[in-house]
């Protein structure tokens, strides 16, 4: 009896992990949170390879990878963080045309977002409106969308004037929370957030003209320590394939292909 119990225990705990391959671990930028999980599911259906995403601010993920976090692939919200990992010898893009440059897999879009029940509607004029008391942006020192937000405001020559009315959030999700909770009148967030069911139900957005900020190019790198290089390449190819790129477009990212 105890024998049989032990065997079934082993079967439950041990066997599946022996049979199934370890899932690919993806470190993904916060703006991919609403986008990536369905794509990974399709990837699983197409190839049988399991992949799990951890969505966090790109800066946090970079620090974690620098300190040995067991990720296989890093999908950043910009190019500077993956470049930093390549320069440190911790990541690469071996197999692509230039193995020292991150692979751009999509471009981000910056939008101005307000709640539907607020008196203000999103437009460029709103940024000059004195009724705009609090404008939320993501931290410009590390969040790519925060950097884009400051660049856009500077290009409109209203950054200095708005400065005292700006509140800074940790990442793009928190920026949206500041506005969605009604504490900030408007926020500069990612189109991927604005298109989520939750935020598209409660608010409206205005796409900031692309010539106002440098493109938010999102770069991918392979974490050099990975033991599943072949699977990582399959996922990268899948991500860059036309159907998936078209799907990214629907979720608020601009395809690169």
């Amino acid at each position, binding site marked *: 009896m105890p024998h049989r119990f032990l065997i079934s225990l082993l079967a439950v705990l041990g066997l599946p992990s022996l049979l199934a391959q370890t899932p690919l671990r993806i470190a993904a930028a916060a703006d991919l949170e609403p986008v990536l999980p369905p794509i990974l599911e399709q990837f699983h259906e197409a190839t049988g390879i399991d992949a799990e995403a951890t969505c966090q601010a790109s*800066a946090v993920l970079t*620090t974690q990878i620098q300190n040995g976090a067991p990720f296989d692939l890093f999908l950043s919200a910009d190019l500077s963080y993956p470049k930093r990992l390549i320069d440190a010898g911790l990541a690469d893009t071996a197999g692509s045309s230039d193995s020292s440059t991150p692979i751009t897999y999509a471009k981000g879009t910056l939008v101005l977002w307000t709640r539907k029940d607020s008196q203000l509607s999103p437009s460029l004029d709103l940024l000059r409106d004195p009724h705009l008391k609090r404008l939320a942006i993501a*931290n410009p020192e*590390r969040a790519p969308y925060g950097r884009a937000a400051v660049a856009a405001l500077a290009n409109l020559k209203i950054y200095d004037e708005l400065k005292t009315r700006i509140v*800074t*959030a940790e990442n793009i999700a928190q920026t949206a*929370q500041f506005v969605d909770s009604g*504490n*900030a009148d408007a926020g500069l967030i990612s189109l991927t957030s604005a298109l989520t069911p939750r935020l598209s139900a409660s608010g409206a957005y205005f796409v900031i003209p692309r010539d106002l900020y440098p493109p938010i190019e999102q770069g991918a790198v392979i974490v050099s320590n990975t033991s599943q290089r072949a699977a990582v390449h399959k996922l990268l190819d899948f991500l860059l394939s036309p159907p998936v790129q078209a799907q990214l477009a629907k979720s608020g990212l601009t395809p690169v292909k």
Partner: protein
Amino acid sequence: MDWQALALTLRLATITTAILLVLSIPLSALLVLGRSRWLAVLEALATLPLVLPPTVLGFFLLVLLGPRTAIGRGVTALLGHPLAFSFSGLVVGSVIYSLPFAVQPLVAGFAAVEPALVDAARLLGANPFRIVFTLFVPLARRSLLAAAVLSFLHTVGEFGVVLMLGGDIPGATRTLSILLYNQVENFDYASANRTASILLTLSVVALAAIYSGNRKRRGSHA
């Protein structure tokens, strides 16, 4: 070193500690002296801030104090500005966040006062106010010190609530812990080390001074 952030943090911790002591002394006395069974619920509520992750507590406060709730609208009308993203908002958040750190030592200290003394005081006709200020406060002054020190330090180290409720505004809501986090996140480890060393040195010096004073007094009693 960002002295503005340091000054802001010390001001926040001082005001929070003062408010907490004013609130916690009567609250803890009520919890110790009171007979109602509802006090168990009250004590549980006063301990709750320990359970919630601070960022979640901050998020709840952000929503509660925002213009979408009646409480938030009332506070805004009263103050003329919303509490979120302001120094007063951080004070409210810190008081709630550090409440258990003031109440727990006080309840323990007050409960340790010899019950016979409390009964004697009652028989002699002392009202609860007099019991608190002539018995509890002088006899439990080490608990009072512990409550003050813990509330102060807990507020200095407060991060999640400030992160959610503050909006990182220099001079208003950018506290030392937020500054430190920014420096670490921006890979500016040299500044982060400097800020952390100053914070830790100041804390050790201040704590050692307080505790050595306390030890001396204990020595004279023995």
